[in-house]
């Protein structure tokens, strides 16, 4: 007995033109209705017309109606294949509601003059925010800082590699050191900023300051100048995340077949040569992955800066993220802050695409 005798399966060939057209019609009609209601709501919201809408529920209801119609239409138009398509619908709704709609909304905010203190609320202001960003030296200073903060990853990588090599060798207390070196990674950057920035390096009572004073340095300063403050921000961030790189590299080192190194050793290669010609090249894929992930972490660097310096002195230590945060929080500039966030997102996407393409090229076998 075939499947069709148990179940009524509608294939594409069974669907009449009329049914198909009806299916398409309800999708387009409900879509048009949704757009119309949304436009009316916007006009009502802006006071151009008065339909008495008190909330955005009518648009939400119209959107829900469109989703139901869309699902129904899939079955009407495509039959059994349409039923299978319905499995995608929850994900599609989620993406539209949680990604596409917020992005469109954020774009709307980015091109408006919206300060929370303003009684006028949100006003479209064209490219004013872009012009402001272009002429904002403190934003570009934050961008420059980001470059420096990211370049510091090279140093972090070198230290992490060294530590990984050490923990991969037969040293006494290896297990203890592995746990000890991992501890900073288990702390949140907020805790690190308080433990180190606000406690250890505190000028009056901090133990480091006291030690330096006992050594004859009258006025130790850790965050008093732009250069020093940037250095300590980088150091605290590095202290937190070097273990992350270290553990990735250590995992990579342990995956290298021992025979390779032993063969090189038998051939009389020096330790230095063994490192450069065997270990390091084999570690490239892991290293690049670790560096890429670290760059992604670094691009979000904000918590340590906000806690320790609030971007100071005078914005000298700001990362783009902390700058955007302060623009939102301290100055309530939602419009400008949103534009900066979107621009930063675009910059990150472009930069990461280039970096990943380059990384891909480096990692490709050359034979």
């Amino acid at each position: 007995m075939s499947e069709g005798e148990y179940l009524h399966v509608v294939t594409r060939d069974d669907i009449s033109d009329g049914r198909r057209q009806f299916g398409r019609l309800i999708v387009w009609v409900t879509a048009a209705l949704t757009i119309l209601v949304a436009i009316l709501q916007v006009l009502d919201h802006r006071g151009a017309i008065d339909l008495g809408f008190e909330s955005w529920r009518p648009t939400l209801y119209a959107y829900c109606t469109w989703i139901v119609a869309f699902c129904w239409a899939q079955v009407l138009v495509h039959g059994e294949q349409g039923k299978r398509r319905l499995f995608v619908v929850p994900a599609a709704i989620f993406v539209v509601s949680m990604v596409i709609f917020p992005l469109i909304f954020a774009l709307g905010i980015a091109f408006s003059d919206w300060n929370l203190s303003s009684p006028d609320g949100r006003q479209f202001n064209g490219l004013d925010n872009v012009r402001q960003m272009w002429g904002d030296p403190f934003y570009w200073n934050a961008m420059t800082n980001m470059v420096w903060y990211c370049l510091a990853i090279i140093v972090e990588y070198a230290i992490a590699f060294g530590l990984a090599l050490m923990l991969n060798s037969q040293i006494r207390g290896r297990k203890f050191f592995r746990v000890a070196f991992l501890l900073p990674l288990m702390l949140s950057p907020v805790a690190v900023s308080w433990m180190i920035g606000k406690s250890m390096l505190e000028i009056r009572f901090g133990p480091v300051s006291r030690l330096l004073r006992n050594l004859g340095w009258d006025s130790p300063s850790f965050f008093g100048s732009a250069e020093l403050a940037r250095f300590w921000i980088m150091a605290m961030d590095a202290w937190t995340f070097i273990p992350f790189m270290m553990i990735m590299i250590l995992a990579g080192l342990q995956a290298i077949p021992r025979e390779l190194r032993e063969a090189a050793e038998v051939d009389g290669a020096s330790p230095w040569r063994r490192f450069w010609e065997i270990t390091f090249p084999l570690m490239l894929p892991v290293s690049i992955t670790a560096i890429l992930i670290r760059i992604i972490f670094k691009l979000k660097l904000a918590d340590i800066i906000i806690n320790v310096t609030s971007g100071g002195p005078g914005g000298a230590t700001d990362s783009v993220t902390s700058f955007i945060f302060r623009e939102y929080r301290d100055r309530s500039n939602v419009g400008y802050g949103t534009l900066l966030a979107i621009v930063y997102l675009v910059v990150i996407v472009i930069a990461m695409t280039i970096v990943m393409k380059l990384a891909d090229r480096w990692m490709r076998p050359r034979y």
Partner: protein
Amino acid sequence: MSRRKLLKGAASVGAMAAASGAIPMAVLADAHSNLRAELLSIPGVGQGSPTDADWQKVGELTLGPTKERVQEGEFDGIELTFMGLNNQNLHNFLFRGFLKPWEAYTGAKINWIDLAQADYNPRLQQAIATGTVDFDIIEMGAPFEGDTAGKGLLDEMPEWVKEQIEADDLVDYLKEPVGTWDGKTYRITIDGDCHTFAYRTDYFGDGGIGGAEVPRTWQQINQVTKDLVGKEDPLTGLPAHGYLDPLKGWGGFGMYFILNRAAAYAKHPDDPAWLFDPDTMKPRVNNPGFVQAIQDVLDLIEADAYPTDQINADPGTTAFQQFLAGTGSMLMWWGDVGSSARTSDTSVVGDVVGFGINPASERRYNAAAGAWEEEMNEAPQMAYIGWGVYVTNRVSGDEKKRKAAWSAAAHLGGKDLSLWTSAYPSGFQPYRNSHFQFQEWEAAGYDRAYVEDYLGSNADSYNHPNAAIEPRIPGIFQYYSVAEDELAKGFAGQYGSAQETADAIAAAWEEITDQIGRDSQIALYKASLGL
């Protein structure tokens, strides 16, 4: 004797007297003064910082006025949300303790929204802008009345509350129009803000490293501060420092510190306005008086006169971790430094601290004439006009909830409770005429000279004819936040000069005024100045 027994006793005496026709007022007054004395002995000056148990005890002892108007359990099932500060372990921490007995008696429950000072303005502004006011009671400063009462977000104060809190007792500068908007009253005052001058007495006098006389002008302060570089603090043995300027932004509150200097230079006695031109709202923040104030700070930075890292010290640090802990010799701050100096665990300067009003300037800038005048000028700054407790319109439609909210607020604004908050670390300073009865403070353990000095600095500031009154206009903290951001950049050397820094602030202020609406701002600014 417990408060209950005390009240029982007082009530029986009253009843007997009423029956007999005798006059029991002296006895009742005595009972009341016993209550105030009992309050001030919690925990007692020199007994360390008060704890949660102390705050609850104070709340219990001051429940009398509530019990006169609310039945026990009357607010059973009611929940209220209270938004306030939690900085320096004060404000909301105290309110919790004060209101615990109130909750137990009335049956209401309070949910708390605690905010750090730097988070306070953004949170409030966001709630206002997005229409998401999610609190029934709010601790708020008068400068925000333009943003809240002006937008109809507050509930008007019922008459019985005015009686309960004895509003007539407020010092004059906190009476109307403060707390009112369009003729309606919204605020229960719980604080009386102004900045006063605090200095270390061991730095000055014969043989003092700061000189024989306490500086009385900003010019003298700047000079002494520079002269102290390289000397040793007589109390701690650490490097000596003169005046402490908080140099880092503080969500808008940091602006008050540069305004202390600017007020002396730029607040002219003939002109109540000083931040803006009242006819045009053109900022005065970049006129020569304000520029001089900024230049003073730049000169002290240049002279390495501040403690290391001052430029990145959190503002609360300046008073509580620096001045009270023995770093620096001069400071302008709110009055809680005075009560904390003697009663906080973190203070080491209680025996060597003196007070005064905002120092004068040897010359003043006349904005109307556009010229400097070689005249001595004093101008205490009424920074923030004090915290108040307000009830939002979320409760307006529900009489029972409304009564509960106002009852809680009135409990916090009670006359006797306020005496305690004035005398102990609370974040609040004296603000009622009844707070200036020196003998009450003496009975609590303060010595007379200290109290006269401390309370005198507050009273002299409140009553000064050239006091720089803060405007209650919408967006005032937006102006301040932008200004302190630009100042921080200027202090870090990111602008070419004091004038350039001031011009950046003025340009930002012009933008804000245009954004909010110049005409309405002019009208409200004039109204706030009584013009």
